[in-house]
């Protein structure tokens, strides 16, 4: 029962908490002046006229970075249960964790050697 209660709290919290930042926006929507014109609404690029599409070509660097992050993120999903169960485990578990991390460190070393982590 208590576990259900904890999550009920989180559920109500999620349902209510977004109202708190939304409230000042609503208040501001009531009180603020509205005098839009084309120059005000123009995209701000330091006063220079906007040229071309906003969605410019991005470097693959961003993707590689996100990729390495994703792989480590998923790795950590497995290490969380490993860590909290650690005191109940034997030396074999340490070996298993070591091998698990070692295999992934390989990938990190590879990325390092291939300059995938370099930010040009």
């Amino acid at each position, binding site marked *: 029962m208590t576990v259900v209660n904890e999550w009920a709290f989180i559920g109500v919290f999620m349902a209510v908490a977004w109202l708190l930042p939304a409230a000042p926006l609503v208040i501001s929507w009531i009180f603020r002046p509205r005098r839009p014109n084309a120059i005000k609404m123009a995209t701000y690029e330091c006063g220079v006229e906007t040229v071309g599409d906003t969605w410019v070509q991005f470097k693959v660097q961003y*993707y590689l970075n996100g990729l390495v992050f994703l*792989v480590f993120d*998923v790795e950590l*999903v*497995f290490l969380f249960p490993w860590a909290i169960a650690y005191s109940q485990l034997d030396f074999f578990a340490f070996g298993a964790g070591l091998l698990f991390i070692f295999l992934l460190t390989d990938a990190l070393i590879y990325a390092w050697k291939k300059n995938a982590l370099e930010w040009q």
Partner: protein
Amino acid sequence: MIPLWMYLIVAAAVFAIGVYGVLARRNAVAILMSVELMLSAVNINLVAFWRYLTPQNMSGQVFAAFVFVVAAAEAAVGLAIVISIYRSRRSVVVEDVNLLKG
């Protein structure tokens, strides 16, 4: 508790929507997103069966965790392939990628 079949129907519906997306969309990134949907439907099924049939056995959760790994690997490699195809052919429409058609 909520009967098991309701979860199964939700999962089946998400899976069917994913299948539709994979078959019907032309954009490779959209197809990859649909595959993610299918994997997520599989996960709902796995966890639902685990909860209702073998709640004290870890198999369902472990399998779900492995589905996360597969989903991550699929996203990483799939999107890398999309990026590299885009670089060489300036297109992400799957019908334009017909190099292997001979």
